């Protein structure tokens, strides 16, 4: 393997951190969903790198399952966002307090 394992892990850690920046800083719910996808991709990259370098198949199986759940999460999350926009005319998370009482 020409590129050592630590490089892939470092890249994955930085991708995850960029996703955290998006979740913590932005106010638009769609951008927050995109940042969650970035974080999931960082975790996936870690799993694939370990799977290849340790000659262990289960990491790639797990990535497959994570991707399926991520697609399901994006579908349901975006449906909720579109529904909220229809009711409140905004997808700004600072204005979303429907669940509070």
């Amino acid at each position, binding site marked *: *393997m020409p590129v050592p394992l630590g490089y892939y892990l470092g890249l994955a850690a930085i991708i995850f951190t960029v996703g955290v*920046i998006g979740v913590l800083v932005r106010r638009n719910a*769609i951008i927050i969903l995109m940042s969650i996808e970035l974080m999931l991709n960082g975790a996936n990259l870690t799993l*694939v790198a370990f799977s*290849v370098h340790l000659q262990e198949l289960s990491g790639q199986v797990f990535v497959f399952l994570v991707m399926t759940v*991520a697609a399901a999460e994006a579908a349901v999350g975006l449906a909720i966002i579109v529904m909220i926009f229809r009711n409140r*005319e905004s997808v700004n998370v600072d204005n979303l307090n429907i669940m509070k009482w």
Partner: protein
Amino acid sequence: MFDLAFYILAVLILGSALMVVTLRNIFHCALFLVLCMFSIAGIYILLEAEFIAAVQVLIYVGAVTILMIFAVMLTHQLTGKTIRQVNDQPIAALFIISSLLVLTLLALSKTTWEVASSSGVSPSATELGRALMTVYVLPFEVVSVVLLVALVGAIVISRGD
């Protein structure tokens, strides 16, 4: 050769990921997300995990980001350039982000990773498919039920009344 490809892909990924979280125009964010996911598929090919790379292109580039673009189109009126895009807690967020980055990179540099002796031969797509149909058949079926539930849930939520 592999090193050069890795560095180019890493720069592409990090640049487009930063664009996703900083640009003001949400549609541009979605387009940079496509580029980011595509470069991560390139990294998977570099790791010789070709099945995962194909699934990445199909699911993330093909489905998830297109769904995101649909949502942007459906909610576009109030997301123009005049609206402030950053919330009121940038200092606290900066503190959390920098400590997270420093901690993960520190842990990464302190650990010596064990690598298999025959490193270099990646598990092939054939082995992966066989494992999915034998050892991991129960999670495989459960995740298909999860997909069905999410499909029905998304339709029920967005149908309105």
